[in-house]
């Protein structure tokens, strides 16, 4: 028989008290697991949603001039001397430290073309990455394939120029067929005629050059500002900007939720610890005589502390395991309500078995259980054996 056996026997004997401590700790731990799992699941969900929002980093040539347009409205038709970036420089983006977070790089060349007696903006782009950079685009027809000199016309451009799918457009002495018409997006894209990058470079006589590049960065686990710095370092001639409104707005909301969740977790965990403290204190008082006997027959104060802390530790381990499993189950149920209100919607957000979270739940239960039991254990260990025996 050892001190652990005594602790175990006492737990079995005082089942209701042990159960009370177990329930208190389990609720505390499971609440923390629920909040952390929810935040993580929602973060992952938002991150994957953010990826669907397309490009979030813009690379433009450095210029000393200020923009003269606002909300798509150009003032005074001022034309600045536009600098360009060499297309091959973009390959360096794949070499930055966070290159694994780069989902797509979309070079774009902009230039004015004459169609009949009207001027229009022609944009050369890589249609291979269009679904990553412009996932919201919907169009009638099909995108021009590589090597094909086709046009994707913005809705407003098509209306003004009287374009339709299959119609031939003549620009700068070249004839291109309209292969698709873009549905209204509410953005500048509505005003533009899109074609393959190589076609635009050829029409505009700017082979190998681009006006800007868009980058779709996966934001999970990588601060976008950091990526901007890394790209700026390798492209010193370019101005690299994060399209922060989308990312930061959502991240800020999530951070508020995260803070509130952690605050609530701390409160619930504290209540759990208080339950343990009060119950263990009661248990120690009930066992005054028993502790007196132990001390009288030669148990050291440290032995008494060990017995009480072993009891708390055993219950805490069980509470950690139960708390994690219960928390995981509760998270799955909670997500059904969080993610869109319908039962089906919650199925879209996975709650993976996270060994780190399981370990953290176990550690949290142990820390809470042992910390809350430390004072009662100290009281028990410091009990005067003679006084304790008098209670018999």
């Amino acid at each position: 028989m050892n001190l652990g056996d005594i602790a175990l026997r006492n737990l079995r004997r005082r089942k209701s008290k042990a159960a009370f401590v177990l329930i208190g700790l389990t609720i505390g731990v499971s609440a923390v697991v629920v909040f952390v799992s929810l935040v993580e699941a929602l973060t992952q969900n938002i991150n994957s949603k953010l990826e669907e929002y397309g490009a979030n980093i813009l690379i433009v040539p450095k210029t000393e001039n200020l923009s003269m347009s606002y909300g798509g409205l150009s003032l005074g038709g001022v034309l600045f001397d536009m600098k360009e970036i060499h297309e091959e420089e973009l390959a360096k983006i794949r070499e930055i430290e966070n290159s694994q977070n780069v989902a797509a790089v979309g070079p774009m060349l902009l230039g004015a073309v004459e169609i009949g007696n009207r001027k229009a903006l022609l944009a050369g782009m890589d249609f291979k990455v269009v679904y990553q950079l412009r996932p919201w685009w919907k169009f009638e027809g099909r995108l021009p394939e590589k090597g094909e000199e086709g046009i994707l016309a913005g809705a407003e451009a098509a209306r003004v120029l009287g374009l339709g799918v299959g119609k031939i457009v003549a620009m700068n002495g070249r004839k291109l067929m309209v292969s698709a018409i873009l549905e209204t997006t509410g953005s500048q894209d509505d005003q533009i005629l899109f074609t393959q990058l190589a076609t635009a470079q050829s029409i505009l006589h700017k082979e190998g050059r681009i006006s800007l590049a868009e980058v779709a960065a996966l934001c999970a686990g990588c601060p976008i500002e950091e990526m901007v710095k890394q790209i700026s370092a390798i492209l010193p001639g370019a101005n690299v900007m994060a399209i922060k409104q989308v990312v930061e707005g959502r991240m800020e909301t999530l951070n508020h939720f995260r803070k509130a969740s952690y605050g609530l977790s701390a409160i619930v965990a504290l209540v759990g610890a208080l339950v343990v403290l009060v119950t263990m204190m009661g248990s120690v008082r009930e066992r005054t005589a028993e502790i007196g006997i132990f001390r009288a027959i030669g148990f050291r104060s440290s032995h008494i502390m060990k017995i009480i802390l072993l009891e708390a530790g055993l219950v805490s381990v069980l509470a950690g395991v139960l708390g994690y499993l219960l928390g995981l189950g509760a998270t799955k149920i909670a997500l059904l309500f969080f993610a869109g209100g319908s039962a089906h919607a919650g199925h879209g957000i996975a709650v993976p078995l996270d060994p780190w979270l399981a370990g953290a739940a176990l550690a949290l239960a142990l820390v809470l259980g042992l910390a809350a039991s430390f004072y009662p254990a100290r009281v028990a260990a410091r009990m005067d054996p003679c006084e304790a025996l008098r209670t018999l």
Partner: protein
Amino acid sequence: MSTIRVDSLTKQYGSGEAAVLAVRDINIDIPSGELIAIMGESGSGKSTLLTVMGALNSPSRGKYWVDGIDVYALGQEARADFRRNTLGFVFQSFHLIPYLTVRENVMLPLTPVKGKEKDKRAMAERALGRVGLAAKGHRLPGQISGGEQERAAIARALVNKPPILLADEPTGNLDTKTTREVMDLLKDLNSDGMTIVMVTHNHECARYAGRVLRLSDGLLLGE
């Protein structure tokens, strides 16, 4: 074999006008191997004296020596070790732990000691055999008689072979026949060289002692 020396020992509870002198200026020398009975009326201070001799209750004044060790000069943990290694304590109400079997109760003083479980169990079996409870080690204290509980408490007190046994009214809750059995057992242990100090108000029990000390109002009246 241990020599006990109590030197000008006084124990006071409370202070000021509420102060109570439980024992006053007690001097006792007990050579090793003696069986001593301490007698006195209720409230005479005999149990207080025993708890002081049991290293459980610090005296207000005076010294308590065992084999040249100033027991109350030891720190708390060292005094716990002293109790475990040098003293066996038999309480009036047995004080067995109800949720442990008789064998486990007997093994309790060995619990904090490093050693093989098998050896500890063998020591407990020997102690149980010595008090005639070898067949009842598996039972819980509530499943055996009062006399058997007292014998189990004695087995617990002698399991680690301490040189001194302190007994507080060891037969206080027992009938005449069982009292005799327990006293015969204590006499046997004393014959084997164990020093025994017993508090009792039973004259029959006191007859087993080689010396009887009488206390009244905390004062040692004489032998």
